[in-house]
């Protein structure tokens, strides 16, 4: 016999409204954008929060943009000599002449050799302000080595001089030389890092993906390279460049040397990342579906640590720039007629010279600024490289 039906039983209830699976936690537009954003977009957001890195990035962008048009920015050509203006101290940029605003100008200088004191004495001619001209014609040059031009962003007044950072022992404008030198020093880092990046990627990729004896051999090679102190090795290698080579060949020789010695760190990073990634399920799945090793590495593994690679490459650029600077400073790297920041600093090697003509130390400043900017920017990139953390 069936038990009697309970009277207090609830009626069966059905909500006829359409079901919304997200009604418990509706996503705001912002959250939705976040969840749908690509990895690179999230990295960009994360990088943007790193104020110091953003500022450094802007500084670097400024420097590298200026590399594209050094001839225009520099008031003089790097080799223009002013025989009467040897070791002129920096001319201060002024705006007020006799209490009156007349725009940027400098006072002319005259340098004479004082026979009593036996030193160069510079006198200011404060009666005749020499106004700085903008977008004017000055020393002629070949823009990018091709187009003959003579336009400069700013140049001295007609018949006047404009040495904002003084001149060197041959009467060449230090500021202009620094701007030209920046082109060599900045690009050497990029070219060098390209070389070490490709080498590191290749060797690290081989070691990490194949493992076994390949890994062993490559690890030994890395170990041997790393037990040489970097700078003496660079020095020894660049001393081996034949002195008969043209400056351009020496330039490439130096970058290759910098890259050859530097790839080990990157190779290690690639290797350890690959070793952990290839055990992941998605890598195994790709393999099981018959993807070739090259495809697995390029299509599946590389994207997941490309950001790390870019960060570590950025962090190894300043080492290259410093390496070149150090080598040239020692006289083992680039040398005249090529100007790099290190070549310029070579003039500042003698402490007595520096004490009398301190403006020859000026090229130190861009080196430090560039290296700092790269460090901070690279650090920000590294933090942003893992956006899901």
């Amino acid at each position, binding site marked *: 016999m069936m038990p009697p039906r309970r009277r207090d039983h609830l009626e069966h209830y059905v909500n006829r409204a359409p079901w919304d699976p997200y009604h418990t936690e509706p996503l705001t537009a912002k959250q939705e954008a976040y969840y749908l954003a690509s990895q690179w977009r999230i990295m960009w957001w994360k990088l943007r929060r790193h104020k110091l890195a953003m500022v450094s990035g802007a500084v670097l962008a400024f420097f590298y943009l200026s590399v594209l048009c050094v001839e225009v920015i520099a008031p003089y050509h790097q080799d223009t000599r002013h025989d009467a203006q040897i070791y002129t101290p920096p001319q201060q940029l002024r705006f007020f002449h006799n209490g009156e605003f007349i725009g940027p100008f400098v006072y002319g200088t005259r340098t004479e050799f004082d026979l009593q004191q036996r030193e160069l004495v510079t006198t200011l001619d404060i009666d005749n302000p020499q106004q700085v001209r903008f977008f004017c014609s000055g020393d002629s040059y070949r823009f990018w080595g091709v187009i003959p031009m003579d336009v400069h962003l700013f140049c001295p007044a007609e018949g006047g001089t404009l040495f904002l950072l003084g001149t060197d022992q041959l009467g060449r404008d230090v500021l202009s030389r620094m701007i030209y030198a920046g082109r060599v020093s900045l690009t050497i880092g990029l070219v060098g890092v390209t070389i070490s990046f490709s080498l590191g990627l290749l060797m690290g990729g081989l070691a990490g993906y194949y493992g076994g004896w390949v890994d062993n051999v490559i690890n030994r090679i890395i170990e041997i390279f790393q037990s040489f102190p970097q700078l003496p090795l660079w020095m020894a290698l660049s001393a081996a460049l034949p002195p008969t080579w043209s400056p351009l060949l020496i330039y490439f020789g130096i970058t290759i040397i910098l890259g050859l010695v530097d790839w080990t760190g990157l190779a290690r990073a690639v290797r350890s990342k690959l070793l952990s990634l290839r055990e992941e399920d998605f890598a195994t799945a790709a393999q099981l579906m018959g993807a070739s090793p090259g495809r697995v590495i390029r299509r599946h593994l590389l994207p997941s640590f490309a950001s790390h690679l870019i960060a570590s490459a950025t962090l190894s650029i300043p080492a290259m720039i410093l390496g070149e600077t150090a080598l040239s400073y020692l006289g083992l790297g680039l040398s005249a007629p090529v100007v790099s920041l290190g070549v310029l600093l070579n003039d500042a090697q003698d*402490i007595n010279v520096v*004490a009398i003509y301190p403006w020859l130390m000026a090229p130190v400043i861009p080196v430090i600024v560039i290296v700092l900017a790269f460090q901070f920017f690279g650090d920000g990139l590294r933090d942003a490289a893992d956006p899901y953390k």
Partner: protein
Amino acid sequence: MLAYVARRILVMIPTLFAISVISFVIIQLPPGDFLTTMVNEQTSRGEGVDLARVQYLRELYGLDRPFAEQYLMWIGGVLQGDFGYSFEYRLPVSEVIGDSVMLTIVVTLATTLFIWAVAFPIGIYSATHQYSWGDYGLTFLGFLGLATPNFLLALVLIYFANVHFGTSIGGLMDDRFIDQPMSLAKALSILEHLWIPVIVIGTSGTAAMIRRLRANLLDELQKQYYVTAIAKGLSRRRALIKYPLRAALNPFIADIGSLLPELLSGATIVAVVLSLPTTGPILVHALESQDMYLAGSFVLLLAVMTVIGVLVSDLLLAVLDPRIRLGGRAGR
């Protein structure tokens, strides 16, 4: 333990062999040799060349023999403590480099100690006071130290010392001690001059070490054993010193391996800037004049010093950390 030491030393042998070959290849790379350079220079100056002497030297050092034979002669001598002959100084290489290698070791050791002494308290402070003003300030200082290239720092320092104090801070000892035999007064004089290169070379290493120690210690401080120890009523100081600090100490020893090449590199160029009588200036000069045995011996010695430093650090680490001794890996 003994097996570990033996294995570690055995692994070193092929590395050392490869290093010696590479050193020799590098110094052989430039076209010509010291003798041809010398002969060219002297003839261009119109001086007579002692051809008999040149021929004698060439035969003595086998400069006209094939590469492998030259290498074997050189390495055979090195193994017996004979590093060859410096053409430039006209002295056996070991006499030219003896003092400077010693001084390089002194500078490097002092720098390592300096890095430890500075990084240790600062790293602990930064980790235990995370996100405090002190932490931020020290981190920023560390960043600056990491980013400022040390030879430029040396240049700037020399400049300011010269302008503001009118003194020259170069050198590693008072002039009167140069070429004197080692004595107490000389050692004191060296100590007096040592601090400038030590600080200059040590800044970047210190900054890196502080960051490492801070990160390691922060990791440890979040682990459960530490929380348990605190929960059970151990004082924070005691808990910190007793457990996490020990685990976080590894980088101090483990980093010798990566620190040494960096310090030696730094020491090389800083030595040129500050004109220290260490290996740097002599190496530069030897490379310029193709004084091959001198340059080669330097490159070799610097690399061997690194390898030995790494060995010492590995052994110390094994003594210190049973996880490594028993076959695991360091928690880097």
